[in-house]
């Protein structure tokens, strides 16, 4: 590699590192990142760190309010709710992560193809995205549940489909603006292959925008999964997610109003933290658009 090339690499490297440092230096962003980390670790390491076994039934402690022994209280079978919330987080976060991945990959492909094929193909692709976005997310979600059924796997596909159109629109618009750039022109003029231009030049440059978007999609995925599970059209028992815990709490609201409060607050905190993180990522990585 030439000296000039190395210098550019270095400068780019520095820019990326700076972005991370700038992100962490924002107090809300750092706090949000910390919260997300706690939630993820709490869910992933639940078997190690949870105070009880997830199905340890205790009939002497039904519907216990929060206390030192049961921080979030207990449920209708005397199971510890903090433990249940940690295990439920595994399902909720797994679904959210997988759905985000699907929607990012599908949406990026969708948007890129639409940006490159200017004719009727691109036009049709974007109009389909418009039509899908022309319906409230929850309602389209209901249609998809009716079509695919309600299970953990189908939820992942459903949520992936739900958020792909908006991702496609973003991917298309950010790619179109990259196509105006000098480096793209340079790459084309030196005769670089299409593959190299897309994977080596365009994708890395649109990645920051897409990364910020992915964080916001994850927040929405948690939100919608919880909503669907809450009305009984999401994760099905005996599967446990934050949404199903909340629903179980809601049906027992008149026996213990503490029961739904903590699963609800955890959903709120997770969505809030991811939103804050996504907004700050957007400001750091893509100042022009934010």
């Amino acid at each position, binding site marked *: 590699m030439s000296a000039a090339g190395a210098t550019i690499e270095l400068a780019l490297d520095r820019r990326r590192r700076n972005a991370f440092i700038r992100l962490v230096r924002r107090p809300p962003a750092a706090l949000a990142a910390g919260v997300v980390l706690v939630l993820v670790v709490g869910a992933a390491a639940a078997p190690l760190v949870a105070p009880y076994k997830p199905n340890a039934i205790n009939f002497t402690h039904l519907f216990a309010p929060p206390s030192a022994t049961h921080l979030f209280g207990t449920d209708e079978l005397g199971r510890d709710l903090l433990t249940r919330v940690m295990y439920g987080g595994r399902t909720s976060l797994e679904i959210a992560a997988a759905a985000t991945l699907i929607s990012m990959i599908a949406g990026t492909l969708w948007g890129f193809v639409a940006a490159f094929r200017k004719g009727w193909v691109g036009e049709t692709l974007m109009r389909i995205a418009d039509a899908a976005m022309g319906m409230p997310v929850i309602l389209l979600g209901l249609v998809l549940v*009716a079509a695919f059924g309600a299970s953990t796997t189908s939820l992942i596909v459903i949520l992936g489909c739900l958020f792909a159109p908006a991702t496609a629109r973003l991917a298309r618009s950010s790619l179109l603006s990259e196509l105006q750039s000098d480096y793209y022109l340079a790459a084309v003029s030196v005769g670089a292959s299409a593959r190299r231009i897309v994977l080596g030049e365009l994708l890395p440059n649109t990645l920051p925008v897409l990364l910020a978007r992915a964080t916001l999609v994850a927040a929405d995925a948690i939100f919608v999964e919880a909503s669907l599970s809450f009305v009984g059209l999401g994760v099905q028992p005996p599967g446990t997610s934050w949404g199903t815990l909340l629903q179980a709490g809601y049906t027992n609201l008149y026996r213990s109003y503490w029961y739904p409060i903590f699963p609800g607050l955890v959903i709120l905190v997770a969505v809030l933290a991811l939103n804050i993180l996504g907004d700050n990522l957007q400001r750091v990585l893509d100042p022009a658009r934010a």
Partner: protein
Amino acid sequence: MLRYLVKRLVTSVFLLVLSSILIFLLLRVIPGDPTITKLGGSIKNVNPRAIEAIRHQLGLDRSLPSQYVHWVGGVLHGNFGRSYFSQFPVTTLVSERIGATLELTILAMLIGLLISVPGAAIGAIWRNRWFDAFLSGFTAIGVATPAFVTGIILIVIFGLKLKLLPTQGYVSFANHPFVSLKTALLPAITLGIAVAAPILRILRASITDVETAPFIRTAEGKGLFRRQVVVRHVLPNAAIPALTTVGVIVGSLLGGAVVVEYVFARPGLGTLMVDSVFQRDYGVLQTLVLLAAAAFIFTSLVVDLLYGVVDPRLRTVRGDE
């Protein structure tokens, strides 16, 4: 202006057609037959002739294009089809349920605007650091809180603890206006908070934009009180970009109503939709979702046309397109 209007109308109709195809195909292409639930859930002990008869009766034995044309043709003539499950016409089901949803969404929109507009105005007039922080916190939390969480918290506080307000059900406004509003209050506040947060966020962002405009400096320079500057000059101009958000929210109120109606056990269109998914009652579901999509597309059309009315500059610019 006329050319813009026509162009906008054509794209709206086109979008609606595309949405209807999307809904229709999603509910047909994937296996899962509504006749099975209708016959009692288990297919094993059912006479295949009975299934055939029901499929024929519901028109499910026809080709997909023919089914689609039949459905959309019916909707265009005001015939929304029948429920696969209960055999009632969808029109009857909708007219039974729409009252609860309309009352909820209208009240929620009012509450949402009553929180967001004065909130943004006071924030702009007062310019207090702590109040601004409070508003930012409210929008961030409001946007991130699922309506069922707000709903449950409100039920616990006002229903269970204070025993002030009813938490379940629906009373027709025509029969008992006061009781009806009282029953609708908690659900409306729940949905209203979800509505207020995004409106407040966009209003504050566009107020920040407008504040730097030269005409604001002029208004301040000619000695108007801060209150007058905000109410007469900042807010009207800041409201224009916020219109789009308000339009999107009005269009998606039905989506929010799904969860809120479930929490407060209101027999509205939202609960009807959830029930129809449970029963695989596609006859009801497809029409309801199409109506929701139509409402969504229609509001965004109206908002776009309103822009031309509110902001005369846009009329000429867009007319030249």
